[in-house]
């Protein structure tokens, strides 16, 4: 069975059907892209999967278990990480600390342990620091480890968000427009990065407007329009799909 | 319980309940235009009572009340103009703290002006022992004044909001502030106006209830808590529901005298508040999605 399985997922905002009866699956080890015009409901779909927004109907299955009623933090701890379309880094915290928050579910020191600075807690803290630095190193961010995260350039902030999500060691990674606002070199870099993430065995579901990136890296594409799924196929066939062309070019 | 006693309790409940409802509506008016809960709401009621009591010897009862309402309205407007209007994007925490500070300053000023002792207006008609008989129960006519005044305020307010253009502008402001601004409504003045309105109705309520409950400098906090309970009970921002919720709380309190010692009466409202916040934070009558938008 697929790693992630959406069944008749539905979300109404008042009279607006932001996500309308959407079903598809994401197989393990694939990169799957969700595309669609502005306002098609892509971000809402992500919010439904991660539990940020309660669904009006339908089911989300992750690794065979129903996560539709779970809270965001529970879903995250099952190994489902995400980034945000409008970057949501922790301000007033360094890049390193941001990534260390990503390691939250991979660590356990609690309130009492922290207050008393137990040896186990200090060991864990050192481990988190090392792991976070390694991650930053892999993404070429180690020079910025001690900078305040929100003071970085836009592209670097996106990279920090990605590092933070990867710190969670997810089995499924949701990326909401990872290349938005980046130049072509940075976009190409992001493409390589996503492919390398997949090489590590992480399944990726991404929303992206940059078609060349989508066609380059993804194995499958889902097209949303006005909340409805209008197509799902491999990239080459999507490009030939009449309905998709109509939606994108207008009638 | 005899029918007579029952009616007596009922009217006591309705009296207090009307005041709670007015305080709750005051909360709602300001909340709707600004998204702020004005913690100084109870102070308006206290001020109305105190000012009218001070002016009574000079102006006589009717004019003293009118003057008290007007002065409190000006006071409300000044609060908004001096402390709230010019803040750019204040956070909720900041607004809470500012209005709390305002309520403390108002109260402390009242303490220094009027002292610690309790004051009260005379009964509008007759005195403490004058009564009218309703269904065999003896009710003070002042109770009818309170209920009548609060009822009139609710009716006038709803007419104001439904039919006058200023009222409609205020509602537009409540529904969507940005859109209202774009439509050329001066939202800032609407906010000032909402403070004036809340202050005015609070002050009038403070005047009519003063003969029954007396007025002391520290009345405000208790009233604010109960008014807030009622506002939440009815669903924040929903003034018609607040009337029902106010009466409900007043009546529950009145009848609970039988079971719970008087000293713990405040605890009822607060426990109710906590209970409501726990199970239905959007209010008894509100819908789940509408109630908590600002938070």
């Amino acid at each position, binding site marked *: 069975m697929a790693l992630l399985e959406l069944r008749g997922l539905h979300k109404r905002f008042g009279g607006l059907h932001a996500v309308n009866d959407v079903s598809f699956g994401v197989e393990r080890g694939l990169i799957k892209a969700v595309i669609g015009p502005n306002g098609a409901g892509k971000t809402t779909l992500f919010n439904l999967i*991660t539990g*940020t927004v309660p669904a009006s109907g339908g089911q989300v299955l992750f690794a065979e278990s129903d996560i539709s009623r779970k809270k965001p*933090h529970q879903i*995250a701890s099952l190994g489902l*990480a995400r980034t*945000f379309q409008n970057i*949501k*880094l*922790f*301000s*007033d*915290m360094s890049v390193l*600390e941001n990534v*260390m*928050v*990503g390691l*939250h*579910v991979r660590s356990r020191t*609690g*309130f009492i*342990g*922290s*207050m*008393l*600075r137990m040896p186990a*807690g200090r060991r864990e803290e050192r481990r*988190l620091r090392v792991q976070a630095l390694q991650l930053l190193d892999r993404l070429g961010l180690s020079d910025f480890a001690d900078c305040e995260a929100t003071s970085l350039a836009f592209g670097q902030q996106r990279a920090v968000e990605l590092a933070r999500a990867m710190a*969670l060691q997810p089995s499924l990674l949701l990326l909401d427009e990872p290349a938005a606002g980046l130049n072509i070199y940075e976009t190409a870099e992001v493409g390589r990065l996503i492919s390398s993430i997949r090489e590590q065995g992480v399944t990726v579901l991404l929303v992206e407007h940059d078609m060349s990136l989508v066609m380059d890296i993804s194995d499958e594409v889902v097209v949303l329009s006005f909340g409805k799924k209008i197509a799902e196929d491999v990239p080459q066939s999507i490009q030939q799909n009449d309905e998709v062309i109509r939606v994108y070019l207008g009638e | 319980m005899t029918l007579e006693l029952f009616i007596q309790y009922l009217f006591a409940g309705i009296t207090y309940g009307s005041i709670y409802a007015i305080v709750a509506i005051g909360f709602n008016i300001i909340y709707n235009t600004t998204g702020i*809960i004005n913690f100084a709401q109870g102070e308006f009621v206290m001020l109305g009572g105190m000012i009218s009591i001070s002016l009574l010897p000079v102006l006589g009862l009717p004019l003293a009340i009118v003057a008290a309402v007007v002065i409190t309205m000006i006071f409300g407007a000044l609060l908004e103009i001096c*402390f709230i209007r010019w803040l750019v994007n204040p*956070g*909720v*925490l*900041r607004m*809470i*703290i500012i209005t*709390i*500070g*305002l309520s*403390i*300053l108002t*109260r*402390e*000023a009242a303490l220094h002006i009027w002292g610690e002792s309790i004051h009260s207006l005379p009964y509008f008609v007759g005195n403490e022992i004058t009564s009218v008989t309703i269904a065999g129960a003896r009710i003070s006519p002042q109770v009818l004044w309170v209920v009548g005044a609060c009822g009139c305020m609710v009716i006038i307010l709803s007419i104001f909001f439904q039919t006058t253009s200023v009222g409609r502008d205020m509602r537009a402001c409540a529904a969507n502030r940005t859109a209202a601004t774009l439509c050329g409504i001066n939202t800032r003045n609407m906010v000032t106006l909402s403070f004036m309105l809340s202050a005015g109705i609070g002050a009038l309520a403070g005047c009519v209830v003063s003969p029954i409950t007396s007025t002391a400098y520290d009345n405000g*906090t208790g009233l604010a*808590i109960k008014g807030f*309970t009622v506002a*939440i009970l009815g669903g924040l921002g929903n003034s018609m529901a607040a009337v029902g919720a106010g009466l409900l709380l007043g009546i529950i309190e009145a009848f609970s005298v039988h079971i719970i010692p008087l*000293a*713990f009466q*405040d*605890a009822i*409202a*607060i426990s109710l*508040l*906590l209970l409501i916040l*726990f199970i239905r*934070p959007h209010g008894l009558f509100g819908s789940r999605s509408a109630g908590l938008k*600002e*938070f």
Partner: protein
Amino acid sequence: MRRLLPICLLIGAVVAVQLVTEVSDTRYYLTQLTMAAYYCLLIIGLSVLMGYAGQISLGHAGFFAIGGYLSAALTTHNLIEYNQAGLVQALQQLGLLVSTQDIYGSSLLVVAPWAAALAAVCAAALIAWLLGIPVLKLKGHYLAMATLGFGIIVYRVALASSYFGEADGISEVPPFQLPFGLAVSGDFSARVENYYIAWGVLIIGLILLRNLIDSRVGRALRAIHAAPEAAEAMGVDTARFKLKVFVISAVYAAVAGVFLTHYNGGIGPSEAGVMKSVRYVAIVAVGGMANLNGALLMGVVLSFMSLRGVFGTYDDAVFGLILIVIMLFAPKGVLSLNPLARVRATIGRRRLSREGG
């Protein structure tokens, strides 16, 4: 080392102050400094709740009072007439009770101060937890009102129950014996000793909170404050973290209540008043919400001034005014008002806008 430096400085300052009072023959200041230290314990706990967890509590005087009142009531109410009751006997067997004689020579059987203190603090923690479950789901105004309501309930209960002495409160609370022959008491001869006990307790409390903030938990709290949605997406259970911080800050308040009550030898309903809670919020706000050192400094200074009666009958008004002025002009606390930095920032902005335009 960097962690220890501020603490060492603080210890140095505490000792220096005591020596100065010794030399200048102003030992009477130590009394208020001792009391201020206990209030500060509450204030740093509240500072973590407000500054790091972003939650406001207008009911912290309630937790202080729960600590103080329970401890006072348990250590003063004579259980001798219930001598035969099974529960009392069981407590006695466990060594939780002490028998003494009062000044008139009649025998007293009361709960041992340490057991009373433990019970009081646990009660506060439990109540905070129960209150926190519904209340911390709420934000902003709701939380403020709910905690305010809780504070009022505590105040009314203290004022209305004869067990808590009604308007008079509870007096003649016995000293609290600590290890090493120390005792928390208002005894004249133990003034210096108590000054050091109070500041010792405060410094320990401070170190624990510092540790908390610099840890995984503290990071998660700051993350919740900065971007709650992202924190949730990283697996931080925001509701639970907030609840735990709430309980911890309530425990700090209760501990402060216990110690101060034994130091003063009594407690009255004014300690539970709403104005007290507001005052604590004011002090945290002046110190700069997420700034333990600022909260500590302002806590000592303002509590000390208030206790010495500097503000006279305007005591409450001063704190109301502080709240407004700070929130209007320096919402990050007075310590953020670094004039030099301001000037530099303004100049920088000018230059930027000139270059931009």
